[in-house]
C-alpha cells in the first residue's frame, strides 16, 4: 500500500512537471516543423509570459486565470511583432544565423527583464483554491499538480481537435509534411506561420506562468531550461503534437524520479537516453521520416 502510494505520488509529480514542459514546448515543435526555424528563443517567450503573470498578480492584483490570459495575449502580440519584423528575414538563412539570432534575442530578453524587474527570483502566489491537498481516494496529493495534469490533457485535446478537425489544422499538417507542395496548392504559408507562431508563443507564456510556481522565475530561466525544451521537441518529433506530449511526460517523470533517487548526476541518464533515442530515430519518436 505504502509502495503504491509512493509510486502514484512520484508519477503525479512527474506528470505535472511534464505537462508544463509540454505546454511550453508544443509551440516550438509546430513552428520548427513548419518552417524548420531553429528558434532557441522560445524559452524567452515562456519566461516573458511567466513574468507577465507574476507581475500582473503581485502588482496589479489580477486573478490567476486573468493573469494567464493577459500573458497569452501580451506574449502572442510581442512574438508576432518580432516575427513580422525580424524572424521572417531569416527563414531562408542557414541554421547558423538562426541560432546566432535567437541566442541574441535570449540575451536581450534576459537583460531587459533584469533592467525592468530586477535580477532576483520572483515568487508566484497560487490562488487558495489551488493551494491545498486533494483527496483522490487512494492518495492525498497537491491540488495544483492534479490541476496541471487536467489542464494539460484539455489543451492536448483542444490542439488535437484544431489539428484534425479544422481547416487551418489541415493546412498546418500539410505544410509540415511538404511545404513546397502546400504552397503550390495555394496555402498562404507566410500567414499560417505568423498565426502558429503567435499561438505557440502564447502557449509558451501560459506554460511559463503555470510552471513559475515550482520551476522558479529569474532572468536565467530562458537559458536554464532551454535544453529541456529542445529535448522534448527533438525526442517527440518536429511538428508532432502527440509526440511532444509523450516526450514531455516521459522527460518529466524521468527527471522527477532521478532527482529523487539519484540527486547527484542523475540527469546523466536523461542525456544518455536522448542520445541513444536520437540515434535510433533521428526524426524523433513520432516524427515522420524526412522526405
Amino acid at each position: 500500500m505504502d509502495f503504491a502510494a509512493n509510486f502514484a505520488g512520484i508519477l503525479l509529480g512527474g506528470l505535472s512537471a511534464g505537462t508544463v514542459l509540454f505546454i511550453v514546448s508544443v509551440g516550438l515543435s509546430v513552428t520548427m516543423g513548419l518552417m524548420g526555424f531553429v528558434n532557441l528563443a522560445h524559452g524567452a517567450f515562456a519566461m516573458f509570459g511567466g513574468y507577465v503573470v507574476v507581475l500582473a498578480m503581485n502588482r496589479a492584483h489580477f486573478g490567476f486565470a486573468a493573469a494567464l490570459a493577459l500573458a497569452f495575449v501580451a506574449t502572442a502580440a510581442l512574438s508576432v511583432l518580432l516575427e513580422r519584423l525580424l524572424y521572417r528575414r531569416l527563414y531562408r538563412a542557414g541554421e547558423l544565423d538562426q541560432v546566432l539570432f535567437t541566442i541574441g534575442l535570449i540575451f536581450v530578453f534576459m537583460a531587459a527583464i533584469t533592467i525592468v524587474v530586477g535580477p532576483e527570483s520572483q515568487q508566484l502566489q497560487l490562488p487558495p483554491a489551488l493551494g491545498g491537498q486533494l483527496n483522490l481516494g487512494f492518495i492525498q496529493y497537491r491540488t495544483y499538480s492534479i490541476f496541471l495534469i487536467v489542464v494539460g490533457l484539455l489543451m492536448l485535446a483542444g490542439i488535437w481537435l484544431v489539428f484534425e478537425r479544422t481547416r487551418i489544422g489541415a493546412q498546418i499538417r500539410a505544410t509540415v509534411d511538404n511545404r513546397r507542395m502546400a504552397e503550390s496548392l495555394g496555402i498562404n504559408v507566410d500567414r499560417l506561420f505568423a498565426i502558429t507562431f503567435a499561438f505557440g508563443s502564447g502557449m509558451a507564456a501560459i506554460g511559463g506562468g503555470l510552471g513559475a510556481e515550482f520551476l522558479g522565475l529569474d532572468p536565467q530561466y530562458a537559458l536554464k531550461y532551454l535544453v529541456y525544451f529542445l529535448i522534448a521537441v527533438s525526442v517527440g518529433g518536429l511538428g508532432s503534437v502527440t509526440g511532444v506530449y509523450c516526450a514531455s511526460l516521459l522527460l518529466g517523470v524521468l527527471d522527477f524520479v532521478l532527482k529523487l533517487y539519484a540527486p547527484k548526476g542523475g540527469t546523466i541518464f536523461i542525456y544518455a537516453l536522448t542520445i541513444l533515442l536520437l540515434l535510433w530515430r533521428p526524426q524523433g519518436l513520432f516524427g515522420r521520416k524526412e522526405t
Partner: protein
Amino acid sequence: MNEAASPAGRAAATAPTDHPAARVLMRRHRLRWWELLPWLAAIGFYFAFPDYLGFGAELLIAILFALSLDLALGYAGIITLGHAAFFGAGAYTVGMLSFYGIWTEPITGLLLAALAAAVVGLLSGLVLLRARGLTLLMLSICTMALLQESANMAHDYTRGFDGLPSLTIDPVLGRFEFNPLFANTQYLFSLAVLLVCFVFVRTLVYSPFGQSLTGIRENLLRMHAIGSPVRRRLVICYTISAALAGIAGGLWAQTNAYVNLSALDIDRAVTVFIVLILGGYGRLYGAFVGAVAYLALEHFLAQIYPTAWQLGLGLLLVFVALFARNGILGLGEVLWRRYASRRATS
C-alpha cells in the same frame, strides 16, 4: 611512382600551373603580407602592455579555441553547440595529471590533452555525425552535458564544482618558470602554441582534404555523387578540431593553474560560437578578430555594467545575424570591395 608510370600523370606533374583554375588555386594559399599583422600585433602587445599579459594569454587561448571550432563549423559546416566538451576534456586531462602529480611537463601535457580530446571527438563524432540540422545540434549539446554530468558524478576524482586548484606545472623547456606569477612566460608559450596550431590549420584547410571539407559544407549531395567518403572526412575533421580544442583547454588549465566544471559548460560553448560567428567563420582570421573584439569588450564592460553588456551583446548578435551574415571580417570585405570598385570607376 605511379605518377611517373602514366604519361597523363607525368603531364599533370610537370605543368600543373598552366591552367587558369590551377593558378587561382595555387594563389589561394600563398602567404599575403597582411597575414603577418596579427603576429606582429601579438609581439607588440607583449612589449606595450606588460601588465595585461595574463589577459593576453586568455585572449590567445580564446583564439585557439575559436580556430578549432572554425575547422569543424566554418570549413566542414558541422553545426555544433557542444565544443566545450573537447575544451573540457583537454583541461581535465592536464588538470588531473598535474593535481595527482602524474605528469606536469607543459608541452607533452598539451599533447596528452590533445590526445584525450581527440579520443572524445572520435567517439562522439562516429556517433553524432550521422545526424544533421537540429538533431546534430541537440546531440552535440547532449554529449557535452553528459560529459559535464560525468565529471560532476566522478566528484571523488574531479572534485566537482569546487574544481582542482593550484596545479603545478613544470618550467617550460626546463628553464622558464610557468605559473600565474610569470605572465610573460605564459603569454609567449600560448603564442607559440597558437602559432604552431595556426600553421597546421592553415595548411590543412588549403590541402585537398580541406578543399573536400569545403565541398561537403557547400553541397553534400554533390560530394556524395563524386564518390567522396563524406562521413569519414567529417569524422576526421571533427577529431582534429576536437584535438585543437583540447590543446586550448589544456593551455587554459595550465595558465590558470585551475580546472573546474565551467570548462565543460554550455556557456563556454555558446561563447566560442559567438566569438567565431562575430569574427566571421570559414576564413581562419575570423577567430582572431572575433576573440579580440569579444574579449576586449567583455573584459572592460562586463565587470562594470554586466546587464548593459548582456543587452548590448544580444543586440549585436541580432544585428550580425540580420545584416552582417559573415561577421566583422565579412562586413569589412564588403566595404573594401565597395571602396575598391568605386576607386576603379572614378
